[in-house]
């Protein structure tokens, strides 16, 4: 029986209050819909990197991956350590495309690249997925915390109380601060997740009597990095490779609206590249270790005889954490579990609001309204998305088939979406009709494969045994079947249909940096290398207003300052507070006007509105950097 100490309760409650207050504080930085959805596109790479990890680690991650690690050893890390395959493609293919083409959502990219029909279908797919997933995260969190946190004696009342409190805390700060709050709270939550996971491992190793004891009590068969080739229906190498490594990773990094919004929140393409490089090379291995190591500890503890061998793998995380953590530390672990949930749910809510406003409300319901109007709609949609998520929880709890239906739906659409995006990016000949039929036909083939796995998926099974019947058979390797079917449909339809005009899709496929920069800037990009210059901001009536709300205010600089920046009139200059720890929170993108030699050499002039949007004070020291 797990008993929560008073100090643990205090830590959990203080954590909730802290998160709500901290997240809501950033509401003051949200003045436009661009701020709400993309945090003003001004953040430094390291802030976005930590927030990406917080999103990557979901509410179920600690429990699910600890259980997997307990049963399968180090190979459980496969699920998070195969994203390296996509690293160069993200850095040099996808991030420049989405950043420079100024898209706001993945469905919008599909409209630009193909047509409105494909955009609409993808919008429906993504909204169903996102809203359903908010409910799933809340539900799984309730399942995990309900046996531990006893506020009410009645188990059901307790369950809904936990879910509602967490949902309300998240909704309050997201509604106030949108993406800025999401990024800043996720930075804290990401650090907390990693620290908590590493703390459990450190304490567990000490509990066992040192690292040598831990290592010798992990069976040799559990020390392999990769799972056995095809032995198990539930966790085999080839299945995980195709499902997690290829289909899921591609959709997560290239199409997950929450992740796309993070990439669009960085101040430049170079920072976007640094983000993904740091996440995949540094944070992913650390996060994997933090999440999985409790399961490895559990194995060592069972083998040493200090933990009951009949502990269910699903309970191993809580049992090990409870065993090795003193009161207070356990409270921190519980806070980390809720952090894992909140940091995923806040991203999902913000992403749902972005898709609803940008892909439904703005183009179809109320086009041509002011930015303030859409900002208001975005706030309301955030509240509604959370309410729908809460309403879905009792539905998932009482009707298991609906919960499963969401899982089946996700599995159905993932491979076609991954294939459609890859072909859209890499193959100019890939036509609009082909994209539409890749999505629809691929999903249909996936659905049929799940009904008759023994006939349709079996040829792709690599010898993995068929376990479970309809909708359950070949749970992992079916991704390969989906990829092959979608690819086949895409290629065949492309070859018999007409592609879109090359001029219409300029910058939406693999492109040169000059084409992409021109798309973003409107004129040729300036690639001449300049210096970062320290200046003082000043408001001036000499600078005409306009462009501030679109995140491209005009600025006036002296000739020498422009020379140091290697900037020309019309170039994009990023102006930022000199205090690095703000991580770009107080900054803005500007467009340089023609220089004037009569101005103070050490000053940068902008409109009062631009000063307000950036959070600068008159006379404040800033850095200026020419981006392109």
């Amino acid at each position, binding site marked *: 029986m797990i008993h929560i100490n008073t100090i643990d309760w205090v830590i959990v409650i203080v954590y909730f209050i802290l998160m709500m207050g901290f997240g809501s504080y950033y509401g003051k930085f949200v003045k436009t819909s661009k701020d709400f959805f993309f945090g003003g596109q001004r953040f430094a790479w390291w802030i976005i990197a930590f927030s990406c990890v917080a999103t990557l680690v979901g509410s179920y991650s600690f429990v699910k991956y600890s259980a997997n690690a307990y049963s399968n050893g180090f190979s459980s890390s496969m699920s998070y350590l195969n994203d390296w395959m996509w690293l160069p*493609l993200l850095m040099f293919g996808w991030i420049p495309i989405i950043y420079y083409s100024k898209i706001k959502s993945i469905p919008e990219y599909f409209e630009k690249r193909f047509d409105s029909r494909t955009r609409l279908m993808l919008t429906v797919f993504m909204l169903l997925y996102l809203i359903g997933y908010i409910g799933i995260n809340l539900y799984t969190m309730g399942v995990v915390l309900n046996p531990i946190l006893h506020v009410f004696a009645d188990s059901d009342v307790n369950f809904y109380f936990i879910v509602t409190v967490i949902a309300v805390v998240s909704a309050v700060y997201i509604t106030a601060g949108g993406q800025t709050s999401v990024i800043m709270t996720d930075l804290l939550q990401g650090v907390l997740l990693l620290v908590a996971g590493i703390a459990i491992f450190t304490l567990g190793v000490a509990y066992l009597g040192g690292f040598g004891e831990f290592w010798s009590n992990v069976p040799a068969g559990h020390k392999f990095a990769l799972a056995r080739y095809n032995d198990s229906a539930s966790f085999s*190498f080839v299945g995980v490779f195709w499902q997690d490594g290829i289909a899921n990773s591609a959709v997560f990094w290239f199409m997950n609206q929450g992740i796309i919004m993070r990439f669009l929140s960085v101040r430049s393409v170079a920072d976007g590249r640094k983000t993904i490089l740091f996440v995949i090379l540094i944070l992913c291995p650390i996060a994997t270790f933090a999440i999985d190591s409790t399961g490895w500890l559990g194995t060592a503890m069972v083998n040493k005889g200090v933990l009951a061998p009949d502990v269910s793998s699903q309970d191993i995380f809580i049992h090990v954490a409870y065993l090795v953590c003193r009161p207070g530390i356990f409270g921190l672990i519980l806070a980390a579990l809720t952090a894992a949930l909140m940091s995923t749910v806040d991203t999902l809510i913000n992403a749902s609001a972005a898709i609803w406003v940008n892909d439904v409300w703005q183009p179809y319901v109320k086009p041509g309204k002011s930015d303030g109007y859409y900002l208001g709609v975005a706030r309301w949609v955030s509240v509604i998305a959370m309410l729908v998520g809460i309403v879905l929880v009792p539905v998932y709890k009482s009707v298991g088939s609906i919960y499963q239906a969401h899982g089946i739906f996700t599995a159905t659409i993932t491979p076609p979406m991954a294939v459609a995006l890859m072909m859209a990016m890499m193959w100019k000949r890939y036509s609009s009709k082909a994209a539409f039929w890749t999505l629809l036909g691929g999903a249909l083939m996936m659905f049929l494969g799940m009904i008759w796995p023994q006939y349709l998926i079996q040829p792709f099974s690599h010898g993995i045994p068929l376990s479970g019947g309809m909708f359950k058979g070949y749970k992992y390797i079916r991704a390969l079947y989906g990829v092959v079917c979608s690819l086949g449909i895409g290629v065949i339809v492309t070859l018999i249909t007409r592609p879109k005009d090359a001029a219409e899709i300029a910058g939406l496929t693999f492109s*040169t940096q000059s084409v992409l920069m021109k798309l973003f800037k409107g004129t040729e990009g300036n690639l001449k290398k300049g210096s970062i210059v320290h200046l003082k901001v000043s408001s001036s009536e000499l600078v005409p207003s306009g462009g501030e709300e679109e995140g491209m205010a005009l600025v006036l600089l002296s000739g020498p300052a422009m020379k140091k920046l290697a900037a020309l009139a019309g170039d994009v200059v990023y102006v930022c507070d000199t205090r690095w720890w703000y991580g770009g929170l107080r900054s803005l993108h500007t467009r340089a006007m023609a220089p004037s030699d009569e101005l103070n050499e050490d000053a940068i002039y902008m409109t009062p509105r631009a000063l307000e949007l950036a959070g600068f004070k008159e006379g404040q020291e800033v850095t200026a950097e020419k981006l392109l």
Partner: protein
Amino acid sequence: MKNKLFLLIIAAVFSTLTAEAETDVLGLMLNLHRFDISCKMFDTENGKKVCGVRHADEFSELMKVEDKAAALAIVEDLQKKSKERLAKLEEMKGSLPEADADEAARLSEVALRAQQGDEKAVEELFKAGYAAIPAILDIGNEREVLPAPEVQKILSEIETLADAAIMYEGGNGLNRDVMQRLIEREESYGAILKRAVIGLEGTRRAFPYWLPFVYMYGLGFIPFFAGIIASVIYYRRIRLDVIALVMGSYLFYFCLHGYFQFIAPWSN
């Protein structure tokens, strides 16, 4: 003549290999049986029960034995003997006296002391003979810990004696409770054998441990290479710093996975 000699050498080598395979299988099966106390059950996703971590490992080792036909024949033979033994245990159980409750309670305390490292208790437990079996098994069943290595050793020795006693239908000191526990263990052993037969009869093959590594770093290089092409298109030239950066990332993961795939499992 030369051909005949060659065939004889081949036959000798083959028979040696087969004998080694048999020894491995027997050793593993013995381990599975002896340690089935640790084979506590936990739910899997399809609702079936499987053995715990240690058992699963041993079972997987068994699956890797090269000569599947020989292994299958041995396991089927063991299965047949297990069934016969189970029938005999059931038959004998009815004729045995009930266990002495006071003595059983005393032995539970002794077993607990033995578990905590008391050497006198270990000796006392061994002297108690068959009657100590339920007390030792209760350490695992009720106290939720694995018996200490010394206690497991006693259990193993007592069980060997019990095997002999049952074979000759003798064994003073056997009672109904002890027999019930032996029946349960035999049933558990039978379940393990059944799994072994299913596994060995299946079409699955044990692939070498390096295959997943080659598969991942071979096929995984396709999207990786597409990214390198994207960089060449983007910059309109091959930039060595970019190539060095991305290949460095590839090597980082290559070495990380390589260490845990080829070195870590063999280190202690």
